[in-house]
């Protein structure tokens, strides 16, 4: 079959599925009700393949590839849930838990946190690696919202939603590797930054790192599903 046909046929976990050219493995999997865990991916934002939770195995490829940024090809054979992948996913989650100070019991996102629910769905009952317990700050200078670096997993959803959807690009990442930090403007206090106060970053944050000051206890569900609708409405204009 030619490489130029628009419809591609592939198998995901043994199921034969069809896809349009240019679609990612993740998109096709979800269209076919095959779940692949994700953290940095969010419908409506550009994918960056940062969290590595959506890694999949592809027959004939020795490396594991992130399904959110890997496009399909004809005859592709994808496996999303092997023992090897499960092991890697659990280890990624363990690394995230050790990297900062995630104390679920006292977190405003307790019960509404994607990191917490992923730990449960991936069968993680403890973390085998030593906790780093870094000394990190909390930025409460904004009148409506708070940024708690202790709970940040550096997924950059806030950076992307602010730049791509709100068009303000207040958030960015400073430093490298384990010393990376989300900053507003050129590392100003959030309250003194060029923030438009739209709150999109708070809604897309998968953990309790960004939260609304008016929420108390652990009553802080997030609603990131406005994004695809917003994009759709804008496209139709």
């Amino acid at each position, binding site marked *: 079959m030619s490489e130029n046909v628009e419809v591609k046929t592939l198998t995901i976990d043994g199921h034969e599925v069809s896809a349009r050219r240019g679609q990612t493995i993740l998109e096709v999997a979800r269209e076919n009700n095959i779940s692949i865990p994700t953290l940095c991916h969010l419908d409506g934002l550009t994918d960056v393949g940062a969290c590595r939770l959506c890694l999949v195995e592809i027959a004939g490829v020795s490396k594991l590839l992130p399904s959110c940024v890997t496009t399909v090809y004809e005859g592709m054979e994808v496996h999303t849930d092997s023992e090897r992948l499960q092991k890697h996913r659990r280890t990624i989650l363990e690394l995230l838990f050790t990297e900062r100070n995630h104390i679920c019991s006292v977190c405003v996102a307790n019960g509404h946190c994607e990191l917490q629910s992923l*730990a449960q769905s991936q069968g993680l009952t403890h973390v085998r690696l030593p906790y780093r317990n870094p000394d990190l700050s909390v930025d409460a200078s904004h009148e409506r919202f708070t940024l708690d670096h202790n709970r940040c997993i550096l997924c950059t959803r806030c950076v992307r939603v602010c730049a791509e959807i709100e068009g303000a690009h207040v958030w960015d990442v400073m430093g490298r590797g384990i010393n990376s930090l989300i900053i507003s403007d050129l590392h100003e206090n959030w309250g003194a930054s060029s923030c438009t106060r739209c709150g999109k970053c708070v809604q897309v944050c998968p953990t309790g790192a960004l939260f609304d000051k008016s929420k108390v206890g652990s009553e802080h569900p997030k609603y990131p599903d406005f994004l695809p609708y917003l994009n759709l409405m804008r496209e139709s204009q």
Partner: protein
Amino acid sequence: MSKLKLATVWLDGCSGCHMSFLDMDERLLELADLVDVVYSPLVDAKDYPEAVDIALIEGAVASVDDEKKIHKIRAHTKTLVAMGDCAITGNVPSMRNPIGPEAILNRAYVENASAQPQIPCVVVPKLLRTVRPIHEFVKVDVFLPGCPPSANTFHAALTALATSAPLDVAALTRFGA
């Protein structure tokens, strides 16, 4: 069949796990048919027994005393259960880790004390530099996360352990539950 020997231990935690354990209410009677509580803050036994079948450990390892205890418990226990988030992750007690014990003790006993400010050094055990989960010190057989794990979680897990039935912990509870 003779009853299993059950111990419960309280290290650096708030006792909330023990309270939740008691929340099993009338199901405790059902459990009492399967186990004898041989050591616990809830009973009057001073020394950890020689041979315990199941030990539920609440709390993290935060002091030299906790560290000594957990090694002794491990040596005399068949199935060691890390009960609740403090035992498993360090949880709230571990929030002092980035700050250090000196600053914390100073704040509590010197800066905020009006009469005879002094850091306690007799009777109370010395704090470790950091609060750590128990599996960093000894081998743990079962992890039961939650803050606290619910009474239903305790009931399902203990019944499974006492009857050697399969136990899917992630289906019962999670961190912060």
